[in-house]
């Protein structure tokens, strides 16, 4: 029986890179519209977990359900799951040979079958939303890091996804540009879209997260609402981690 309120569900998921056990018995249910923040030390498997949701990685056993549909274990080409799941990468990954507008309309035109006009209308609307409508005809390398990441967010939103994944969206940015990107994401969090954000920005987590997930060594060590998570973490490892990052 599938629960219709669940956006993403991990059931006893395990994954290996050759003989390296990267995800260990992952169980996680994310409701539709929920905002999840995942944190944990580098190398703990956060990116891998998130990338399993849109089939950029495959898992070896257990089950992953996205919008009630099971993701194939073997195929890396799970197109159906993809179009509902948008992703923002740490390194932006904009298409450098295309202008901002072309970056935004490519997916809607080729994958969703929108006309150029429809796609452009959508693109302009979203550029307003990420507050850079004036950059529409620039190439990515003519923009600052913060602007590039906001274009990347708009590009993902152009597909009108039900779920948005953010993998350390501000980690590659200069400090003065972090706020402008986080503001856009917080803005987005006001809406019904499901969001899964890997980040160490704890100020952002306190504002936007419905639930915190702490990962260490391929396992989900602790989950909880932000208040409890930050005030009194249940595990020693989580406490140590929070102390380390809150020092900065």
């Amino acid at each position, binding site marked *: 029986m599938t629960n219709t309120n669940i956006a993403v569900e991990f059931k006893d998921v395990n994954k290996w890179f050759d003989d390296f056990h990267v995800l260990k018995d992952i169980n996680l249910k994310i409701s539709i519209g929920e905002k999840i923040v995942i944190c944990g030390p580098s190398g703990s498997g956060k990116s891998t977990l998130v990338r399993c949701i849109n089939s950029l990685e495959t898992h070896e056993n257990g089950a992953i359900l996205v919008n009630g549909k099971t993701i194939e274990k073997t195929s890396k080409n799970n197109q159906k799951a*993809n179009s509902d799941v948008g*992703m923002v990468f740490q390194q932006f990954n904009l298409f450098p*040979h295309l202008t901002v507008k072309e970056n935004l309309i490519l*997916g809607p035109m080729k*994958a*969703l079958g929108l006309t150029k006009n429809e796609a452009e209308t959508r693109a302009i609307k979203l550029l307003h939303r990420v507050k850079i409508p004036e950059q529409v005809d620039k190439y990515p390398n003519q923009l600052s890091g913060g602007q590039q990441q906001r274009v*990347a967010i708009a*590009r993902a939103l152009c*597909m009108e996804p039900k779920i948005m994944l953010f993998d350390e969206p501000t980690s590659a940015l200069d400090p003065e540009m972090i706020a402008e990107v986080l503001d856009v994401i917080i803005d987005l969090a006001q809406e019904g879209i499901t969001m899964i954000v890997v980040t160490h920005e704890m100020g952002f987590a306190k504002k936007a997260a419905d639930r915190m997930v702490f990962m260490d060594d391929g396992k989900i060590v602790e989950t909880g609402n932000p208040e409890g998570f930050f005030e009194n973490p249940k595990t020693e490892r989580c406490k140590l981690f929070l102390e380390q990052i809150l020092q900065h």
Partner: protein
Amino acid sequence: MQAVPRTNIATLMDFILKYKTFFIISVLVLLAGCSSPPGTWGWYVIDPTTKGGWNNIKFLLSGFSATIMLSVLAAILSIIIGLVVALPGMSQNRLIRLPSRIYIEFIRAVPLLPMLFWVFYGLPVILKSLGLNIPIDPFWGAAITLAISDSAFTAEIYRAGIQSIEKGQTEAARTVGLNYFQTMRYVILPQALRRILPPLANQFIYIVKMSAFASVIGMQELTRRANEVVVSEYRPLEIYSLLILEYLVLVLIISSGIRWLERRMGSDQR
């Protein structure tokens, strides 16, 4: 004080180095011409002021069109075959990768001349046994052979160019819903092109030079025409010197075209 003449010499050296093949051959020909006993050279055979010499020149130079047409056709075919071979060669799946690997290794190992004989004399036998009466004329035989022989190299050039594009580009393309072919067409190939084009153009020089082999199956390109004049005039030294000069001019024109292309691609880096 010394800086000025040294710069001039440096520029001269640069110039000579740039066209070193041309200079070396010119100097050798000049030396040979001056130091050999009378009768060694008989330039009358291609003397444009005499009727016979002029006819010979016209006959020899008219091979350019065939050499160029053959090379261009072979290059176009090779670019297409190379892509068709390269794409499955980069698959995650070993079984899909395998035929591509085998093709590249096999074709690279076969010398051009035996392959040319096989296509021109051997393939018609197979076609006939299949009930297909398709004659293979020297032009198409040579074009197909050159294209296949070159396609193994073209495929490797594609592979290097495509694999030099970051994985993040493919991943981003997939997250906006593009399928494999759309990702190649709109995201990867346009970016890989600037890395693929220069070595591909270089490969064109190889095709032009290898097209000389088409002479042995009777195609009237530059080399075949030179052979025919040599047989009737008994003047191999002069005719083959001119032949080398013809290829030299052709290749120098192509390579200056490549340099222009590289400059243009470098200047609009994004």
